[in-house]
Each structure stands twice: as C-alpha cells, then as structure tokens.
C-alpha cells in the first residue's frame, strides 16, 4: 500500500520565501537559502522574494575573506539549476537602499509592493525571515 502511495500523484504547493535580512550579521539569510534549495529538491513551486534588507543578500562583489565567513552569494546563481526561476525583488526596498538591478548577482523580476502583495496572496505557504 505504501508503495502505491509513493507512486501516486505528487502534491505540489506554492511556496514563497521572503528574505528580509541582510547577509552575515545574522544567520537567517544563509538558513533561508538552504530551505529554498530543500523545497526545490522536492519539486515544489518555489518563489523567492527579496525585500527590506534582504535585497542586500544579492549585492554583487561580496568578498568575505577578511571576516572569516563563507560568501554564499554565488549560490544564488545556482538556483536556476534547481528550477528556481521565480525570483522577485521589491522595488521600494531597492530604491531606499540606493541599489539598482545592475548591482545584483542574478537577474530578477522587480515588483512594486502592490504587485508583491498579489504574489504573496496567491501562495499556499509563505515563509519569511
């Protein structure tokens, strides 16, 4: 019986991960990236959002050798390989920090807060950190 269940139709839910923390100062950003990769491994419908200080996670030219921590920003470039292609940045958050799309390590879709609200409202599961 168990094997039949395993072969049955897979449950795919819409998961949205909202990154709101800067990298390195706390462990939230790195942990969230691990969580996104796990959801992708289970072939879920994953959206990744960067808002507030979370947009700093995507900044180009991070170089952590002098602070003794791993630079995890190159991992964002690997998301595509895990079929995580829905990546969004909140326009207002980027503007408040003086950043543009050219400052980011990957191509993203920029949404304003109203558009982002619609996206979040359409999800089955929303996880924010």
């Amino acid at each position, binding site marked *: 019986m168990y094997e039949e269940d395993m072969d049955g139709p897979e449950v795919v839910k819409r998961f949205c991960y909202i990154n709101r*923390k*800067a*990298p*390195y*100062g*706390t462990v939230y950003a790195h942990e969230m990236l691990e969580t996104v990769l796990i959801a992708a491994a289970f072939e879920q419908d994953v959206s990744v959002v960067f808002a*507030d*200080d979370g947009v*700093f996670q995507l*900044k*180009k*030219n*991070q*170089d*952590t050798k*002098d*602070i003794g*921590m791993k*630079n995890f*920003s190159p991992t964002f470039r690997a998301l595509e390989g895990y079929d995580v292609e829905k990546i969004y940045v909140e326009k207002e958050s980027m503007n*408040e*920090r*003086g950043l543009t799309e050219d*400052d980011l390590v990957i191509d993203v879709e920029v949404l304003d807060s109203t558009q982002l609200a619609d996206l979040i409202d359409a999800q089955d599961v929303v996880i924010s950190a």
Partner: protein
Amino acid sequence: MLHTVNKSPLERNTLASCIRLAKPGSAILLIEDGVYAALADAKSAELVKSAMKNFNFFVLEPDLRARGMTDKPLVDGINSVDYGGFVELSIEHDAVQSWM
C-alpha cells in the same frame, strides 16, 4: 568615548539611539550590519549627515567589503578603517560602548 554600532539603520533604531545618547565629540564606528549606514544613496544617509557635525564617523572596511559595498558611494566625511584602525580607535578613547 568610542561607540560601535553593529545593526542596519534600515532595520533597527540602534544608530538613531546612539546618535541621540552619545555625547557630542564622540567617535562612532560602524561595524557588521552597521556599515550599511555609510551608504550615501540609502535613505538612512540623512540621519548620518545630520549627525556629522557632532561626531567623527568611521566604518570598518572588511565588513563593508564582505557585503559588496566598496563600489557604492559613502557619505562624505566617513573614514574607512581596517582592523588595525579599530584597535587604534579603541586605544585612543578611554572607553568603548557597544550599541547592539
């Protein structure tokens, strides 16, 4: 006194409290996520600029570099220091207050 601030000014009011409660003439060193306060084009720059006449601002360059911010303009008048500079600032001042 030397004051260190390690929280982002865009997420916490740590820097605002430091600026409000530190005695004019003090030094303020931005470290860890506090370095985002040095960005000239961030909305937090107004707070730093308005405090510039009362305080000497420093930013820890390794923390700025880790976050990829060395290619962005900094608020005029903020001095970059390395770890050696952090040590010297600690020695020059009679006490260090960590705002967290």
